[in-house]
């Protein structure tokens, strides 16, 4: 088996990095061997490029199609695909952009990449059953503080330094776009999630974001409520809980382990 594994590893390297295969490894009677491998190189880069273009449509518009091609090429060189499902590729774009020299002056791009990846993730996230309210009636009030709430798997909470939600919206219908957005006007507190089959990007109160973020990390409802209340004295847990259950954001709860 080793010989076989090695053959495939070499073939993979030839496609990804341009490594040269041992003479005689391949049979290619009608055109140069490099032409045949070239089809695979083109598929490799092309499929990843097209995937990134689909995951980051606003980023692509912001930098332009030609520049995006270069950006994607560099990203692909640094970031291997790890899954047979292309929809999982590209989550490291925000991190990549914080180091990418040619766009250092576009300081809001990493925030935009975070937002677009959250949208992409939400689009393809699993479905879950809707909230089972009667089950909550069976919980003793003494156990409320220990409940650990689960957010819908599509949820991402984002705090950004730049007003990327407005920039994102301006790029959805480019003809009627309002580009009168001051980049220095401050950031957003955002929840990205899927509701009724479509993905919503929603500006939410910082207190809500603080509370939901802790629940998402697995903090019990009691502790999450206390830390949120001390950071945001106006925080109203009753309204917030009811709202996010009604919105399909809080979908389930786990009782504390005994």
């Amino acid at each position: 088996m080793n010989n076989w594994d090695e053959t495939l590893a070499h073939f993979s390297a030839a496609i990804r990095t341009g490594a040269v295969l041992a003479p005689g490894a391949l049979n290619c009677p009608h055109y140069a061997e490099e032409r045949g491998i070239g089809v695979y190189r083109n598929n490799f880069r092309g499929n990843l490029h097209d995937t990134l273009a689909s995951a980051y449509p606003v980023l692509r518009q912001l930098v332009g199609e030609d520049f995006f091609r270069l950006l994607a090429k560099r990203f692909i060189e640094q970031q291997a695909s790890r899954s047979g499902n292309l929809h999982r590729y590209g989550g490291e774009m925000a991190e990549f952009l914080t180091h990418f020299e040619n766009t250092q002056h576009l300081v809001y791009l990493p925030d935009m990449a975070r937002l677009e990846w959250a949208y992409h993730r939400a689009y393809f996230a699993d479905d879950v059953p809707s909230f089972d309210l009667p089950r909550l009636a069976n919980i003793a009030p003494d156990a409320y503080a220990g409940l650990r709430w689960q957010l819908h798997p599509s949820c991402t909470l984002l705090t950004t330094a730049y007003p990327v939600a407005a920039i994102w919206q301006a790029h959805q219908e480019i003809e009627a776009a309002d580009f009168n957005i001051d980049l220095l006007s401050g950031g957003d507190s955002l929840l990205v999630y899927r509701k009724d089959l479509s993905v919503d990007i929603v500006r939410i109160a910082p207190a809500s974001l603080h509370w939901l973020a802790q629940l998402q990390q697995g903090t019990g409802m009691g502790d999450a409520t206390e830390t949120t209340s001390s950071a945001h004295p106006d925080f109203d847990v009753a309204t917030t809980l009811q709202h996010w259950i009604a919105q399909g954001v809080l979908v389930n709860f786990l009782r504390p382990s005994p």
Partner: protein
Amino acid sequence: MMNTPASHSLPVVAGIGLRAPHYAEVLERRPPLGWIEVHSENFFGGGAPLHTLLQVAQQYPVSLHGVGMGLASPDPLDPGHLRELRQLCDAVNPSSVSEHLCWNTAGGIAINDLLPFPYTRDALSHVAARVRQVQDVLGHQILIENLSYYVAFNNSEMREEEFLTELVARTGCGLLFDVNNIYVNTVNLGVDAKAFVHGIPAAAVGEYHLAGASMMGGCLVDTHSARVFDEVWALYEYTLQHIGKRPTLIEWDVDIPALAVLQGEAQKAQHRMDAP
């Protein structure tokens, strides 16, 4: 268990590959289509894609065609990928499930393409074990598709049709014969298409694929972006004579034309199936 077909099998008529540009039209107009096929991975997870497919599945028999399992990869099968395929099958109740005879992942790094490999006896044991694993997880048979490829390996110990024949014997899997793929291999690598037709076990063949390719830089590239070539129609007719009628798919993935064009291509396949 091994020889159980998917819950019910596809009707023996022509179908089309259903892609995003035609979802709305198909759901609104409900045109007459024998059956439809989609790429499994595009419906992993939930939300709008799965919702759309479930609506389509109420109207038409559905075939799930996987492109990312990597049956011949040296790395272990991705358990998450298998689980998602199982979930999708449970939701959609497909008439057929298929995968390709190819690999995509080595040393944890995926190349998101359908890659060829040397057809060796070791590879056969490896792929057979993995086909069994997939069939065990799904609880039914899968069809395995022959590959179009642009280079061949000199250390192959058998031809692709011999590999597939033995795979059927060892696993009880079925075969998806992509007629266009064999034609592409004939042009690029001198593969003997008729020997392939006679070499695979006819009884195992559960589906045919037809598509159009593109000549690029001296190489015929399997772009699924054109009408079926005359040479491929001729090979399809030969296949109908020697293997028999099977559910036949028109695949079109790039520069996707109006639905009517796909229906027209499907009609051409249907006429050939109906010919005495």
